[in-house]
């Protein structure tokens, strides 16, 4: 039993890291632009399908690099043509827009690639366990962890040490002042949206290697990502990271004792956090900074 618990603890961290990757993209967009991007799961699915189509030509590694970038370009276009028009309005406008976009994405994917799942092939040496004892530690899961760690480190480096990152952080705190200081807020929001969508595309390419690839692949992943943001605290990217890891571990541990509650436990956890600390673990009074 102890071994099963330890296995699930470790496995929960792996799954949580994946939730965190998706939640960080959502959080970036939400923090700077106040947009609750319900189409994030659609962008994730698109990234995965682009990788699936690119793979026969440029291989898995080429697809891993290129598909998230192509997804990010589409994100830039969507922000420029649609999302931008709703800034400054009630958040429900952008929520409804992105909710509708999610349906359009899903039907579009279904139209192009079909409703049925497609076989997404990862390199054979990744698709096997590293050890028979720790069989759940497959090459692919370890690889996913490394990519997630690199992506998160890269994101924090960009935010901490580049001009763009500093402007995004400043804009999250006070966009009006940043604008008055001469920063082109339109471009800033556009690039920030693209960065968030890049993370969604990357999450999609990674997820499809573990899950079946169908147009609904993003559906089951988006709600845990929102929960990760709430648990970690609105406005805090480190909080989002911790929130993702925590819900992954909570779901993994629940499977040991009460498997049918695996899905419900993350919402119970969110409710508990909201009762004890309404701003989330690292949030600032429940409002964006």
């Amino acid at each position, binding site marked *: 039993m102890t071994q099963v618990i330890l296995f699930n603890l470790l496995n929960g961290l792996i799954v949580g890291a994946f939730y965190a990757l998706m939640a960080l993209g959502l959080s970036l967009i939400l923090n700077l632009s106040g947009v609750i991007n319900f189409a994030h799961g659609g962008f994730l699915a698109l990234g995965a399908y682009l990788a699936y189509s690119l793979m026969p030509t440029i291989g898995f590694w080429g697809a891993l690099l290129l598909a998230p970038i192509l997804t990010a370009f589409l994100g830039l276009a969507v922000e420029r043509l649609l999302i931008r028009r709703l800034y400054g309005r009630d*958040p429900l406008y952008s*929520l409804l827009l992105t909710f509708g976009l999610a349906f359009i994405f899903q039907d579009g994917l279904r139209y192009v690639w079909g409703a049925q*799942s497609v076989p997404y092939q990862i390199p054979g040496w990744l698709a096997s366990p590293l050890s028979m004892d720790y069989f759940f530690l497959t090459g692919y899961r370890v690889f996913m962890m490394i990519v997630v760690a690199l992506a998160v480190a890269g994101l924090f480096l960009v935010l901490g040490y580049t001009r763009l990152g500093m402007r995004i952080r400043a804009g999250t705190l006070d966009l*009006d002042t940043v604008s008055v200081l001469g920063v082109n807020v339109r471009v800033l929001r556009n690039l920030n949206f693209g960065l968030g969508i890049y993370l969604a595309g990357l999450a999609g390419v990674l997820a499809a290697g573990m899950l079946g690839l169908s147009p609904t692949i993003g559906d089951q992943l988006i709600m845990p990502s929102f929960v990760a943001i709430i648990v970690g605290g609105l406005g805090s990217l480190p909080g989002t990271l911790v929130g993702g890891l925590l819900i992954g571990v909570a779901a993994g541990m629940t499977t040991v004792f009460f498997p049918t509650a695996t899905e419900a436990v993350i919402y119970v956890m969110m409710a508990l956090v909201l009762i004890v600390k309404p701003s989330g673990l690292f949030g600032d009074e429940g409002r964006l900074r």
Partner: protein
Amino acid sequence: MGSHSKTSGMAKTSGMGRRTLLKAGAAVGAIQFASPFIISARGDEPIKIGVDNPLTGIYTALGKNENTGMELAASQINAKGGILGREIKLVVEDSTSDKTDVAVQKARKLIQSDNVNFLIGNVNSSHAIAIAQVAAELKTVHIVPGGHADAVTGSSCHWTTFRICNTGAMQGNAMAGPLVKALGKKIYIIAQDYAFGHALHDGLAKAAAKAGGTIVGEEFFPLGTTDYSAVLIKARAANPDILVDLAAGDDGINSIKQAVQFGLDKQLHIAGMQQELEVIEGLPLEARIGTWMFEWYWKQPNVPHVAEFVAAIRKVTNKVPTARTWFGYASVWSLALAANQAKTLDAVKVAHTLEGMKLPPEVALMPGAPFFRAEDHQLVPSVFVGHEQAKGIDDPEDLFVVDQVVNVADVMPTPAETGCKLDFPA
């Protein structure tokens, strides 16, 4: 100044708070339950068959394939004069994959607003049970093409409802012997935690015990689970001979794919009961493994009319028909045959005609003569036990090798065992 005020407006977003986010989430949840825009069918002349099947969510592919089979049947029936000389028309609604209340609402809409003469649905067993209740209340003959929970033609049976696909008990009885005999006695079951998963689990558990097998563990997981590692960790800890995976749709793909990535196929046998071509085609090559059962398979070289059916479906979809396609096809044909034979659309008379009715070879498309058992309205067909193959030899879509055809009549639970008591009106 103008520029400044424009920018300020754009920047005015920091009022977004946690409460707004939560409210927005709740609003989005509510939208999913709201009725979509509905286009009513026009005209009273055609015979209308309401189709209440999933077109969105995890069962989209299965629902659409069933509908494709229904469309082919409808066009063939119309070419032969329709029902009682009238053209038949399918009125299709999206039940969703996982919202039973939406499926029920659509069933009511089809019967009460669109005035359909017959109802077909659903892939999801819970939906099927719920809409069967609606069909009985509104006295409409209803066919369940692909919802497998035993209760549909068992404890929750109705005089109005007939079913094409097999029950969990039928599948369990057909599969338990071959599994225990060929792969081992210690069985660990993983299944989706709703009516379908429980039906298959119960059917196999009972039949395996009779065949000399032992269930060493079982795990039910929520519909739409993405990560199966925790479930598989527990399964492996129980050290079974066979891991029986009873998940359907995308859950089946995810769970098998992850089991193979964990190398479980090298330590124990991976098997299941009903397998579907839609699932195998979504699996990477290395995960197309194991012993399974097909309820219908497209490659039956010695069975009449199968080749024509395959060609007709391929012409429309560029793909071979799956068991789901046949479920839909047989559903519409069964209704047409019964109504034409009864020479009426009267629900009671059509239902009585369906009881005991044998499907003709051009509809049966399998060995033997499938028929609707009168006592519970369950079709009694043959099933195909075999194993998956990574690549088709003669045809890329030939991904299953049939080892044995089982006539379900030989292993069928008795009417008394199903618990069905039909409630025909006086």
